[in-house]
């Protein structure tokens, strides 16, 4: 029960603090853009027009969360000159906790609905 409450709280905290909500709404935004653009084969890169320019908060999100935003962004150059990303264990743990807690949050809602329906049937 304590674990469940903690994960629920962390899920809500994750939704508020990380870019999960932005990530979840991204498909809808990109579909709208796809419709607006009409022809998407004219060399426009994904997100370059829509997210980077239209979304003023993205820069701040990247600063907070590294280059982890789920869309093509200018890649960082490693010392060897090859394109790569800096791995941070803290970020990995944060990502795992955030997404797992989102799943647990949804799971708890579903489980709660199931229990509610069961209880209602018992009463009736």
């Amino acid at each position, binding site marked *: 029960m304590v674990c469940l409450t903690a994960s629920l709280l962390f899920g809500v905290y994750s939704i508020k603090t990380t870019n999960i909500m932005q990530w979840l709404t*991204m498909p809808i935004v*990109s579909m709208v853009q796809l419709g607006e653009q009409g022809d998407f084969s004219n060399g426009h890169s994904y997100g370059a027009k829509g997210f980077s320019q239209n979304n003023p908060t993205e820069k701040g999100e990247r600063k907070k969360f590294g280059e*982890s935003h789920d869309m093509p962004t200018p890649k960082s150059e490693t010392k060897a000159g090859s394109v790569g990303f800096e791995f941070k264990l803290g970020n990995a743990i944060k990502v795992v906790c955030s997404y797992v807690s989102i799943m647990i949050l*949804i799971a708890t809602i579903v489980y709660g609905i199931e229990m509610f329906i069961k209880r209602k049937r018992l009463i009736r």
Partner: protein
Amino acid sequence: MNVKNTVKLTLDVIMLLIVALLYEKRVISMSFHEIVGLGVFFLFLIHLVFNQRWIKHVSKRILDKTLPTKTKLGYVINALLVISWALVSISGVLISKVVFHINVGGMLWKTVHYTSAAVSLILLGIHLGLHGPWLKGIVSIGALWMK
């Protein structure tokens, strides 16, 4: 808890952690995202093999009125999950930058990739929620075992 359940639960936990990691492609590396993304698809197939009895049984009786609504709902959610995961994998291969260098889809396949991944996250949550009593039982057995 028997051996089969232990293996199943371990596999599920590993899958859950890997899938969560895959939602941010830059957290480890692009190669990790693409290679492990394909790898997790095979883990997903193993998960289906483990549960093949349930799949066969429910597939035969899906139109049966005596089958509980929860089971039917679970079956539909699982089918949608299979479709969304297949879409994530196919679109992932088509927009691959490191492993396959195909990159044929452009924006359309990227949209498919992001949309199906977002849908998968929600469906996974519902899938877990529908297995709530089983998970609750496993957790309580685990707690007893630890004592």
